[in-house]
């Protein structure tokens, strides 16, 4: 059993290696992906294995190399562009929003952009205000993009291949705080449907809807709730854009209650969208109002106790849900 344990970091690395082996057109580019081994050692030794043409270190030029990734995709390559962390992604957001996301539609269907962008995101390593962003909601607003969030080892391992197979630009969020976490990787699964959300745990009493770093937190909370006799269904959105309404609404239809958990700050977030959709389409299924537990609306501070206080913690999820179900 322990032999199957694998870190989240290793999952990403295996996915990269597999992609590079599978298709000559695939190459990885980004800051320090090569000689440094990746800012978080995700791509360590890939340079040695695949050479500098396939593992390209770029200068600090986020707009430049993301734009070059778009161009290379137009030119027939299958680039995997790594933005070291989401914190630097705004520098490339114009390229993503105005070029990658619009080209196919604006050209009347002529030009596909088969680009994959990966970035490490989220809070949890005491990196302070400029290095702890959870900006999935910004990207999830933009038409033309497919936004994925790898909240589990399974997804970190198996999302990349379908993302590369997609003819359109796909952005994958990975999570710095999960990198060292070891889990068993189910051997039965070797592909991931990047159009569907995924029920990670079945339950009948309430739908715990989440993504990213929320997944393991909610699973932990669900364990605790189970001990208290509450069967929480944990739904990992996984695809933040376009959202998979069907799976969300089916879960709510079953449980009649939803609780949404997200590290990103609350206003205009993925959880607001999910709540609004449930409002529109499942209002009469609801036994109680949908509630959200989100990140605090604040630049993230450096000290551990404040960092922890800025995002949902499993204990908070548990107590919020207990209160919610008592009320009912």
């Amino acid at each position, binding site marked *: 059993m322990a032999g199957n344990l694998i870190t989240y970091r290793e999952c990403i690395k295996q996915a990269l290696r597999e992609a590079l082996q599978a298709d000559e057109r695939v*190459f990885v580019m980004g800051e320090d992906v090569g000689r440094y081994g990746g800012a978080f050692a995700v791509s360590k030794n890939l340079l040695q294995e695949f050479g500098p*043409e396939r593992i390209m270190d*770029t*200068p600090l*030029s986020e*707009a*430049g*190399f*993301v*734009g*070059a*990734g*778009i*161009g*290379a*995709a*137009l*030119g*027939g*390559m299958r*680039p995997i562009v790594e933005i070291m962390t989401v914190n630097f992604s705004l520098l490339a957001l*114009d*390229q993503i929003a*105005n*070029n990658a996301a619009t*080209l*196919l*539609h*604006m*050209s*009347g*269907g*002529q*030009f*596909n952009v088969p680009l994959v962008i990966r970035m490490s995101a989220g809070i949890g390593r005491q990196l302070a205000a400029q290095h702890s962003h959870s900006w999935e909601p910004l990207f999830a607003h933009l*038409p*033309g993009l*497919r936004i994925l969030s790898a909240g589990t080892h399974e997804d970190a391992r198996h999302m990349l291949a379908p993302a590369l197979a*997609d*003819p*359109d630009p796909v952005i994958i969020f990975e999570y710095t705080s999960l990198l060292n976490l070891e889990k068993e990787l189910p051997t039965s699964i070797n592909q991931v449907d990047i159009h569907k959300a995924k029920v990670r745990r079945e339950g009948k009493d309430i739908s715990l809807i989440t993504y990213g770093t929320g997944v393991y937190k909610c699973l932990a909370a669900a364990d605790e709730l189970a001990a208290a006799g509450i069967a929480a269904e944990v739904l990992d959105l996984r695809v933040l854009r*376009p959202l998979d309404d069907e799976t969300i609404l089916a879960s709510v239809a079953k449980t009649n209650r939803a609780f949404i958990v997200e590290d990103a700050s609350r206003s205009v977030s993925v959880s607001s969208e999910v709540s609004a959709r449930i409002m529109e389409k499942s209002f009469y299924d609801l036994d109680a109002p949908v509630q959200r537990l989100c990140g605090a609306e604040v630049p993230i501070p450096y000290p551990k106790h404040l960092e922890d206080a800025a995002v949902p913690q499993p204990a908070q999820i548990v107590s919020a849900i207990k209160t919610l179900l008592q009320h009912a």
Partner: protein
Amino acid sequence: MEQQPLQSIKLTAEQARKLLYQMLLIRRFEEKAAEMYTKEKIRGFLHLYIGEEAVAVGVMQALGPEDNVLCTYREHGHALVRGMDAGVIMAEMYGRQEGCCRGRGGSMHLFDAKTKFYGGNAIVAGHLAMAVGLGLADKKMKRKQLTCCFFGEGAMAEGAFHEAMNLAALWQVPVLFVCENNLYAMGTALRYTHAQTDLEKKGAAYGIASASVDGMDLMAVMQAANTAAESIRRTGQPYFLVCNTYRFRAHSMFDAELYREKSEVEEWKKRDPVPGFFNYLTQQHILIDNDFKEAEAKVEKEIEKAVEFADACSLEPVEELTKYTYSER
């Protein structure tokens, strides 16, 4: 310091006719577009290239059909020289589904896969990094072709210019960067845009071979572009060519031109590249007056046909609004 042609290009009468036709086609097409704008057949932004024709025509002569081209929103001329059909372009500007982008792009967003025409890009300097990427793909795939990227001098103030130039030089990709220096970025004169106004000197900061040329002189542009393209094809390295030119018309149809004197425009019009080129041809005894008339007549017919075509075109059904937001599965 403007580039001195090493050896002069000698034109045959046939070549001269083709060039003259291209110059005139842009000029008359755009005049017609302006007319259609006042008639409200064309809407949105319309940026005319009138006065700058020698740049697109001259540079494009150095390109083959396998090369990639990227332009700004001021790209009707480039699209025409690249070989896109005038009617299809006009239809696009009318917003009709027979246009090159189903009418979705309009004047600023002409795209054409057949001629490897990658826009029509309306975020200033937003296409430079894409050009580097196209060059990178060609290099990786060992395709012997180059990517030609046009942009204005205003674009060179954007960080995107800097990043693209540095990446192109570092990665040694076959990209021809063509600055269409028309002295203004909307209403902002060159001296308010750049501290260093000798634009070609900026190439040195990236170790990129650079030159500038009189962009009102078609022959000079052709020469300079040939030199540039040859250098790229030989070395695989990028090249930076500044074409000094002038826009005779307003920036767009919304521009009151408060920022420059009429007299300045008139002064530049004396160097109009269209009659300028024709004068050269007659002086060199390559063409005669009648050739000019014939070219005008041919262009007139072409434009007429384009307008007729566009007028007969239809609108994309509203039901297709979101089609191609994502690829069909």
